[in-house]
């Protein structure tokens, strides 16, 4: 159709505009409709995205390697926290610093050795700073500190290493040419220094210098291992614990305090000689490696005999050759074990997991180091090649087992479910068991449901089936307002008003639970005596005038009788009695308070949905039943309730979902202690409250942050299932009754 001019052009352009507008509107509206699906998917995706990195394991990636000049053996190596400068300490007492970027030797320092003097042993003294000590073949021990000082220039950051000699002394002043064969050096956080060494004659010495008081102790150490020889020795980084390993496979644990070294315990992993020992951060866990390649972690456990005994906690994947070196991570419970054939394992103590197995060199490894931020490993092999590995291991402490299983943490007498996300010191180990939180969530929900389901369902039955019109017209808005009460108000009342009130009237409340049915039964029996002709004359809706006095009477009776019963049966103090007889402590903010407050929040939901379901049972069904001569109650019992069962189920489910996710009420009305205990008289911590409390302090991308997202994901999944279930049931119900 050819467009004519003027008017029709206007019309067609108007039409075109209208049409376009219509299309645009359709497009936008459809987008909004799909937007709803998108938003729920987005929530899910983000929860997954933030919690998924927890499941990524460790990975190591060789960054580069290069050969050092082959002159002397390397005793120690280390790297700065930016992983820009690496150093090696050679047997000739030279400290060489290399820049990673261009492999250039940027600085070389020498320890002041006598001519011809060589280093025999070396030991790093701290996990946080590059303290080290070396023992020489002329019986001297030199102690030094390397600092990496960052300088900022126009072109960027430059790391300038600085070596300072801190202390030099003769290992045994009487014997000038004694060799220091083995040396362990420690400098703890208070600045105290400890040297533990073995001379070539096999004697053991401990020197302890307390810089604050300028005192030096020199202690000789007992050697209780008889005909076996000493094969490994170590000391904790606090200088408090000492461990020796022998050729018989035994490990001796000593404690050093007040100038005395005292044997605490001895234990044996196997018959094979112990080849390496090391303490981990936290100074509690001891890693033991033997010549068969076995690796295990032990720590002292407070036993029933009131003393600490070393116990084997975790065994790790074995090496194919003797374990030679163990390097603890300066950040967490990771440690690196290296065997004589150049295999390295990265293990995580708490999880008992060998995270990585790799071979940095095909021959013996002379020295290795974990970078200060635990994000890299430096290795020097027997052919003087340096290898630098980037380590990506953001969440080593998380496995399915630590999240959901019992874990044996340092300092605990047995494996346990523990949630404790933050602690005081660097060496604190966060404990992320979700079990106490899940338990707490269901405990709170359970108490809430026990309280709310009967009340809500009874009320719904009454309002939908028996109540007169004026009453239901009054009740429904009331319940709706009850549903709208902000949960923060309910929680506040629960925590600050009802918790003390319940504590004060605990006896009365417990009595009320018995008193109410009792009074009710008595009233019913009395009612039965009324002649039927009178009974039938009472109009519908009068039940309230019957039950209100029942409730009030029961309340006032409980309150009046409570002190007498408490005095008579519970020795005057119920809380004391509970503690003495049942062994339960009474917290002010406990499960009963939460059950009440949370139940109060849930009642309107259950009531509304159940009432809807009950009212929607088709009149034809009830009419048929009544016409057949059934009483009103029989109709309700046999016809209405079975017909509405699905809806009632959906109502309970919805209430359940709300109780599971409710945050403010449990946050305010419980003590938020993550414990597993069924007692109604103490509190708990729920998943939702835990998120609310801890997420503001969780560093972004950290383990706690991700675990909290995982918790949220759990909550989401759980409520998703419940909601889907209840809506599917509701849908069925609607279809089922569509035909009546």
């Amino acid at each position, binding site marked *: 159709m050819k467009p004519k001019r003027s008017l029709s052009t206007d019309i067609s352009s108007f039409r075109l505009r209208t049409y376009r507008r219509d299309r645009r509107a359709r497009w936008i509206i459809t987008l909004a409709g799909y*937007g709803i699906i998108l938003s729920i998917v987005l929530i899910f995706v983000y929860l997954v995205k933030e919690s998924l990195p927890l499941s990524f394991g460790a990975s190591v990636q060789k960054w580069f390697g290069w050969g050092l000049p082959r002159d002397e053996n390397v005793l120690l190596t280390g790297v700065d926290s930016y992983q820009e400068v690496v150093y090696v300490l050679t047997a000739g007492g030279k400290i060489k610093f290399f820049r990673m970027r261009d492999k250039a030797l940027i600085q070389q320092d020498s320890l002041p050795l006598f001519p011809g003097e060589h280093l025999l042993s070396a030991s790093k003294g701290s996990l946080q700073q590059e303290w080290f000590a070396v023992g020489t073949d002329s019986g001297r021990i030199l102690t030094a500190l390397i600092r990496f000082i960052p300088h900022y220039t126009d072109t960027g950051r430059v790391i300038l290493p600085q070596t300072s000699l801190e202390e030099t002394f003769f290992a045994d002043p009487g014997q000038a040419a004694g060799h220091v064969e083995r040396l362990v050096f420690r400098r703890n956080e208070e600045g105290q220094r400890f040297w533990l060494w073995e001379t070539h004659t096999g004697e053991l010495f401990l020197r302890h210098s307390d810089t604050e008081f300028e005192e030096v102790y020199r202690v000789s150490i007992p050697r209780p291992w008889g005909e076996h020889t000493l094969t490994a020795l170590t000391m904790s980084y606090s200088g408090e614990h000492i461990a020796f390993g022998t050729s018989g496979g035994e490990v001796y644990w000593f404690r050093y305090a007040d100038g005395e070294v005292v044997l605490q315990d001895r234990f044996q992993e196997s018959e094979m000689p112990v080849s390496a020992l090391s303490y981990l951060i936290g100074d509690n866990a001891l890693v033991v490696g033997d010549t068969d390649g076995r690796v295990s972690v032990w720590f002292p456990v407070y036993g029933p005999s009131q003393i600490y005994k070393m116990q084997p906690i975790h065994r790790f994947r074995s090496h194919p050759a003797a374990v030679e070196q163990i390097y603890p991570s300066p950040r967490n419970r990771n440690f690196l074990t290296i065997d004589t054939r150049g295999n390295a394992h990265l293990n995580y103590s708490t999880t008992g997991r060998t995270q990585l197995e790799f071979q940095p060199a095909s021959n013996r490894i002379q020295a290795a180091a974990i970078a200060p931020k635990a994000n890299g490993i430096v290795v020097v092999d027997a052919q003087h090649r340096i290898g630098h590995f980037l380590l990506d291991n953001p969440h080593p402490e998380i496995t399915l087992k630590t999240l959901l299983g019992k874990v044996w943490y340092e300092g605990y007498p047995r494996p346990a479910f523990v949630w404790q996300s933050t602690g005081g010191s660097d060496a604190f180990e966060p404990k992320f068991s979700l079990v106490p939180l899940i338990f707490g969530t269901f405990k709170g929900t359970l108490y809430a449901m026990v309280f709310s389901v009967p009340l809500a*369902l009874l009320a719904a*039955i009454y309002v939908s089936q028996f109540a007169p019109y004026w009453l239901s017209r009054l009740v429904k808005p009331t319940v709706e307002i009850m549903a*709208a009460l902000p949960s923060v108000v309910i929680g506040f009342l629960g925590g600050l008003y009802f918790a003390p009130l319940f504590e004060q009237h605990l006896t009365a409340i417990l009595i009320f639970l018995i008193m109410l049915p009792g009074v009710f039964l008595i009233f019913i029996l009395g009612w039965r005596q009324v002649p039927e002709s009178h009974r039938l004359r009472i109009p519908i809706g009068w039940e309230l005038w019957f039950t209100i006095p029942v409730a009030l009477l029961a309340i006032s009776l409980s309150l009046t009788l409570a*002190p007498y019963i408490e005095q008579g049966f519970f020795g005057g103090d119920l809380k004391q009695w509970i503690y003495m007889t049942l062994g339960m402590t009474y917290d002010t903010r406990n499960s009963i308070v939460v059950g009440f407050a949370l139940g109060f929040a849930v009642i309107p939901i259950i009531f509304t949905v159940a009432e809807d379901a009950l009212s929607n049972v088709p009149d034809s069904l009830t009419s048929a039943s009544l016409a057949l001569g059934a009483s009103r109650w029989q109709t309700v019992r046999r016809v209405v309730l079975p017909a509405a069962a699905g809806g009632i189920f959906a109502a309970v489910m919805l209430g359940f979902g709300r109780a599971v996710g409710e945050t403010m009420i449990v946050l305010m009305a419980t003590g938020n202690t993550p414990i597993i205990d069924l007692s109604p008289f103490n509190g708990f911590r729920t998943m939702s409250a835990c*998120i609310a409390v801890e997420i503001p302090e969780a560093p972004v991308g950290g383990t706690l942050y991700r675990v909290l997202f995982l918790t949220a994901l759990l909550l989401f999944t759980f409520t998703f299932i419940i909601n*889907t279930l209840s809506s599917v049931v509701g849908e069925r119900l609607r279809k089922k009754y569509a035909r009546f």
Partner: protein
Amino acid sequence: MKDRRISYFRQKGDAYIMGTSLGLVLSLLMVAFILGVILVKGLGFFWPSDLLYLQLKDGKHYLGEVTDREESVRFSESGEPLHIQEVQLKIGNRDLYGLDFVWIDLSDVVEQTYPAHAITIERLEYGNFYGFPQKVRWGERQWEVHHPDFPQQLRRLHHQAVANRKQIARLEKQLNRLLEPLSHVERAISLLEISPEAQTPEGRRKMQQLEEQIRQLETAIREPYTRLTRQLESRYQENRQLVLSLITADKQVKEIPLEKIVRCYFPNQMGFFQKASLYASKLWEFVSADPRESNTEGGIFPAIFGTVLMVLIMSIAVVPFGVLAAIYLCEYARPGPVVRLIRLSINNLAGVPSIVFGIFGLSFFIYMIGGSIDQLFFSSKLPEPTFGTGGILWASLTLALLTLPVVVVATEEGILAVPQANKEAALALGATRWQMIRKIILPNAMPGILTGLILAISRGAGEVAPLMITGVVKLAPSLPLDTTFPFLHLDRKFMHLGFHIYDVGFQSPNVEAAKPMVYTTALLLILLVVVLNLIAIRMRNHLRKKYKMAAF
């Protein structure tokens, strides 16, 4: 089958019916009790109650407001029940006694009176003071309490001190504004000092420039600076001389500077109407003033303001989205898997715990979108985040997502109430679907949309958990809306009534003293929510009636 005999009584089921009604009664009793508690505790707080003077057997004296009475039964050694009457007295004077409340057993009391000249003083610090005034001083001049001019003078001098205090605050603000450029330069200098640039010649030159700038600024502001400080000094001087001296119930002497007094009155001399007017003024202070003493006293205006603003922003976000989605469901979508999926999503959005929305808001809005905005537009301020941290915008958007199902469901109901005939008529006249929606559906479904909006507002106003992690703070330094450009600061943190309840009730150092404040805040919040809901219920009932009319 055997013929089972069931008693007629049981068949009739009276007992069961009564049992069901018991469920209703208990639920209603609970609602009544809870609302009653909030009402009494919340409204009672501002009533100026009489001051009770007690003398005990052991010679102690107390003066204070009765806050609670309790009767309990305890048992003596021999098992005799004793009825004990106790009163809780708010004795105030926190700076002298350390604790605000005491419980007193009435059997220990020798004398109870309501002395006429007992005074209640509300102070800026340390809470209330209860005592007996002695004299009011202005430098050398003083008026004893028995002087006929005393009440007049007290009022006049108090006004004068308060006026001075306000003037001082104004002057200090002026002074700060005067010094502001100076502090900017000083900050630049200290930043330069710690930066690696300081050592370079470039840096040194910059440093000299900055120092020169400081000198210039100093000479420029010298004249107004001295003028302001002189004015300030004279006001300080005068306020130091304005003092009320009092004596407490246990005969301690206390001098209170008049400027520290918010309000003072003799409750035992006041009649009902005087008290009522004082009550009204305290209530007004509560809703209009800023909080004092770490939120435990003063008003809650910033919290009210923050709540309202957040709810407004939330509405702007949620209403278009929700309404469009509802239109899609009612008018465009054909029954099928997509609609089922959307309904499922709505159900789930309604059922997902609010804290999950909060944590989603944190990761998506704040870190993802906010972080990107910072990178793009505020990179000069990094690492200090602008939008990459909690703020009113993110909190509002999070709540918008949370309240979306409410709006969708209510709007749908509104749309369904529009008679089919009207829609068909519009289409038959040649209207496009969009025209029909705009001219027929939207106007007629307006009550439904408004119901949804009101319900969403009431839900949003009462929700706390997601806000706690997306931008609410206990004390915001400035409102998110003010007179400096760009007027509406979407990145600012804000205060919220619900969070105020949580914070003051559970995290303030003196919970017992803060309680009344929390009850009143809770009452306000409940009133807000209940009124909104009542409006929504009325509108919906109206709509349903209309729907019924249209259906038949």
